[in-house]
């Protein structure tokens, strides 16, 4: 579980990792579902329907180990739903996928996380009434003190707790949250919560980090630092799969891009050229400008907007921001959804 952490320092320089990742993608075809040299995640025929609406229908897709892969697509393309299927937060109607060769379909969310596949959420789920440090500690795995009987006798778990705390504090320093360690997470700004959520995910010791719109709702001033942290993950030997709308960011940090539209993977390719791909232009522009939106697409968009709005309301209502650190306004991107 802690491999990722340890390889962080032993691994080669930044350029090496990036070069290695880019090298792996060098001669790949740009077809959807193209096989990768060393895939960490392999997905086959995943289908998810809501009533009559097919939200996800992915035939085949692979994610290369040690790379930063972006998952992009127009609104309602089913990216978040696809994330939910893979991480066990929603049950797929059919399909199989393997993580490190291990079949993961039907595995409940907490076991997916334990296997080393950890996600974050589009709308941050900071545990508002726990302190920042408690949030971090919660991420650690195989805690002796999380067993009911051993919890009753502090001497069983105290040493481990100290170890965890030390690891948490190192991460907090890296994410520049150390000054906030004893504050309630609810008092953090939107961007700080994103950082906390990412740092907390790292406490799990993941091999594959799945970030659902890591930049959504983040103050532009924090964007660069967040980008740096995402790049860092690769340098530490982790694989990153992230959903993002902002093409600048995708171009900046990703090694490979997978494009989804209407639930299916329609194209793959390197970030520099993907946006000039015919199919991608069709998906982004054609669907929106030439042809009217299909009934199902409209519904998908509506549903996503509803879910986002609702969650947003709960989030903003449910927190008690400390004076002077109100959450940042959502980006235009977010509001538009």
């Amino acid at each position, binding site marked *: 579980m802690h491999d990722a952490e340890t390889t962080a320092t032993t691994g080669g320089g930044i350029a090496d990792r990036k070069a290695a990742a880019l090298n792996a993608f060098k001669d790949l075809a740009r077809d959807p579902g193209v096989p990768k040299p060393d895939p960490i995640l392999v997905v086959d025929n995943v289908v998810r329907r*809501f009533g009559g609406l097919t939200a996800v229908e992915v035939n085949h897709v692979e994610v290369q180990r040690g790379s930063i892969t972006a998952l992009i697509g127009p609104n309602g393309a089913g990216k*978040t*739903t696809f*994330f*939910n299927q893979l991480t066990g*937060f*929603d049950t797929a109607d059919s399909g199989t996928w393997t993580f490190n060769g291990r079949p993961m379909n039907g595995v409940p969310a907490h076991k997916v996380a334990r296997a080393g596949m950890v996600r974050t*959420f*589009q*709308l941050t789920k900071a545990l508002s009434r726990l302190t920042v440090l408690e949030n971090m500690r919660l991420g650690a795995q195989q805690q002796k003190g999380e067993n009911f009987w051993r919890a009753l006798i502090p001497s069983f778990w105290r040493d481990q707790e100290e170890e965890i705390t030390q690891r948490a504090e190192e991460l907090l320093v890296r994410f520049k949250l150390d000054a906030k360690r004893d504050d309630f997470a609810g008092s953090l700004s939107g961007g700080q919560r994103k950082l906390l959520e990412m740092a907390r995910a790292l406490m799990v010791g993941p091999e594959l980090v799945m970030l*659902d719109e890591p930049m959504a709702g983040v103050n532009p001033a924090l964007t660069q630092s967040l980008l740096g942290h995402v790049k860092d993950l690769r340098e530490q030997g982790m694989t990153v799969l992230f959903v993002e709308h902002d093409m600048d960011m995708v171009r900046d940090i990703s090694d490979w891009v997978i494009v989804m539209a209407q639930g299916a993977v329609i194209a793959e390719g390197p970030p520099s050229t993907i946006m000039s791909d015919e199919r991608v232009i069709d998906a982004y522009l054609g669907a929106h400008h030439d042809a009217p939106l299909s009934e199902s697409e409209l519904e998908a968009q509506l*549903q996503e*907007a*509803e*879910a986002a*709005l*609702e969650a*947003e*309301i709960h989030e903003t*209502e*449910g927190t008690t921001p400390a004076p002077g650190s109100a959450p940042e306004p959502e980006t235009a991107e977010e509001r538009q959804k």
Partner: protein
Amino acid sequence: MEGHNPALTYFEGAPLRRAVIAFTAFLGGLIFLLAGPAHAGPAECQGLRGTLKLQGQPVNGAKIAVTTEGGQPVKEVTTNAEGTWDVQVDKPGKYKVTLDVSSLPQNAEVRGGNNVRTPTVYEGNCSTVLYALQAKGAANQQQQEGGESSPFWTQAAQLTFEGLNLGLIIALAALGLSLIYGTTGLTNFAHGELVTLGAILAYAFNIGFGLHLIPAAVIAVIVAGILGYLQDRLFWGQLRRRGTGTIAMMIISIGVALFLRYVFLIFFGGQTEAFAQYTAQPGIEIGPISAAPKNFVAMGIELVVLIVVGFALLRTRTGKAARAVADNPALAASSGINVDRVIRIIWTFGGAIAALAGIMLGLSQNLKYTMGQDILLLIFAGVTLGGLGTAFGALVGSLVVGLFIQVSTLWVPPELKSVGALAVLIIVLLVRPQGILGRRERIG
């Protein structure tokens, strides 16, 4: 939820107000209309009467003795072939009625064991004295069932009818509860008290002011609607504005329920009462079903009200707005619906139809300060079965609950009938957590 832009409000006040008035007038007129024939039924009467039935069959030849409160004998009667008895008295007041248990059929006993009742006779009115009879032990019951198939089906039809009757009453109350839940997120534990309130208001106008039950009921429904409006205006709406969480509001509603329930106890007392009219109607038989005409009329009113409300939800602007708000308040607000106004209308209607449910419940059973509390769980069961927050789900769920409760008494002892219904609720949630008509939620 709040904080919408008033400029976005395009729902005009006038049509809404007209709709409310029209609806209330319609309701009132309806009750008057439907009550006409029923009123002709019982003639002028001052005394005590009742019907003895064992498993739907009349009990003939049971002896009943009526004395004054002081023990002065008034009259002894025996029940006729229809199982009815009737004692006219000269003076209003309290009387003591004793059922001679030894004169009952061998296999019958009084449920609860108490064979003495002390009803009050009001001037110019007949009070019904209730004796619930049951078979002694399960062995006798099986004999009867094994005998022929037709009594079973007769009983099944009868129970289905009674189940529909109960289900419709539950549906009236559940509709308001469900809409309030959908629009405000409030799981209102005080909704049962709104049902009681309706019954007690009608009772107050009926007995206290001496109005006939029908105008009394109309006034009670209107007053309850106004109180529903005020409740939201002065209390729940204020809490929402303060940003009180849904769970906090749920617990507050428990406080409100306790508060109201015991206020009712102080003003109404702990005894059971009946309305002045329609208490003792001789049953009529339609096919295999026998029931007092008031039950048919009540069901008619309930059905019509439910259909009108359902139609209003589907077709009128306010109704559509209400469903939109129930579905997603934020989205509704951003598309220009005045959410606060819709919620207030829902509270008004919810209060009014809950009150109507209470009156109907008081008509088919009796009035007690806990009547709403007693039915609250069944209302919740109906709402939950149908899917929390979906108006039509609440209707379906309530009918299922009502039917299940009554029909299950074919196999389950009546005292445990609610157990079956609640167990079904739990089992359905196991299989289909979102309820019958509910929608699955999305995550992320």
